[in-house]
């Protein structure tokens, strides 16, 4: 895959989406790591961003996801403690909504990410699927299951009637 060849075009992409990518990492990693992770994401983008990508943000989120996964693997290898769903990791703090943090901890990593890409990054189903690296159909099923599971954890008697996306 050839990277984007026009520095000006890349600069526009960087300046347009830098804040969104920083926010993505701020929701999932420690604040003091956000800038480095964002810089690593754009370094990858500089080398690998397809030349004719019309809508780069989902692609950037996909790269950010890989950068974050590598970062977490390295942290785990160093023996860093896994984030505490109810207290430690900013991704799990949920603005002080402890019930939500506890319920979220019951979801798998993929299910959490499906919910977050839609609720926090505000992506459409199709764009969230690109960011998650799967088909739109697969993502819709994953999100639906994640919502139902989260609803059950939040309110065991809640009946989920709507199916957005």
């Amino acid at each position: 895959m050839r990277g984007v060849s026009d520095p000006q075009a890349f600069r526009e992409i960087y300046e347009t989406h830098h804040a969104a990518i920083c926010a993505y990492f701020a929701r999932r990693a420690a604040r003091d790591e956000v800038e480095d992770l964002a810089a690593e994401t754009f370094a990858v983008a500089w080398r690998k961003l397809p030349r004719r990508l019309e809508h780069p943000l989902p692609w950037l989120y996909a790269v950010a996801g890989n950068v974050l996964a590598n970062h977490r693997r390295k942290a785990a290898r160093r023996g860093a403690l896994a984030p505490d769903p109810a207290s430690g990791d900013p991704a799990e703090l949920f603005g002080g909504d402890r019930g939500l943090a506890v319920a979220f901890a019951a979801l798998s990593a993929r299910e959490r990410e499906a919910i977050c890409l839609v609720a926090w990054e505000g992506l459409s189903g199709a764009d969230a699927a690109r960011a998650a690296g799967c088909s739109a159909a697969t993502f819709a099923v994953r999100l639906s299951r994640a919502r139902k599971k989260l609803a059950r954890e939040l309110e065991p008697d809640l009946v989920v009637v709507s199916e957005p996306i």
Partner: protein
Amino acid sequence: MDPVLERVRAANPAAADDFVGAADFAALSRSLAPPPPRRIRRHRWFSVPVVAAAIAALVVLPASAPQASEVLSRAVQAVAVDDGAILHAHSEYSYGDVRGSREVWVQGDVAMRSIDGDGGEEAFRRGAGTVRRSPGGAVTSHPETVLVPTEIFRVRGLLERARDVGLSEQGDAYVLRWRERSGPPHGPTIEMTLWVDKETYAPLRFTDHSWGTAADGKPFDQTYSEQIVEFERLPDTAENRKLLELGG
């Protein structure tokens, strides 16, 4: 309004607005600048342990590397087109003495277009067959001919039915290697190898290596190799669909 997603939205721990103004393209550019050239000290010879260590470095994965199943899954997703997307690849291939380049656009099993380095072009659409244009410009129609995309585009099916996929690491690539089921008349050994980008999981290179004894009793050893120069996924838009048409 979905109450579950609304509750998650309300608990969003960070907003993009928090980072407006934090972009520093000059700093990023400095970090992207290539390092100054180093003086390379040339070794005239290598000891056997040095060579062995270099070879081992190609095949041993660090403990932090993902599992084969994860790489496999992401490689399959990288070429999935369930949403009607169009895959485009520009590649260079070799097979024995034959070498060439081609550019291919594929939309599932619906449509495909291929341009060879010699200028020849083919376009296929399900239900309409294939239209060819020779390097000289002559256009012919072949309604019964179905074009089958190269392995890079079919790698999803290949990987999904593959068993015992081996994973190793080579520079910026993960290397997936597996054996294809063989059969009569001469049951060759068929080994497929796919290099995928460590960061995007897009295919970088593919080889189909087969060897054994041919039906006439003679040994053979053949390798088809395809090096991906560019690989991208295009959305299914009217403009991109034109790329699937002859001369598009």
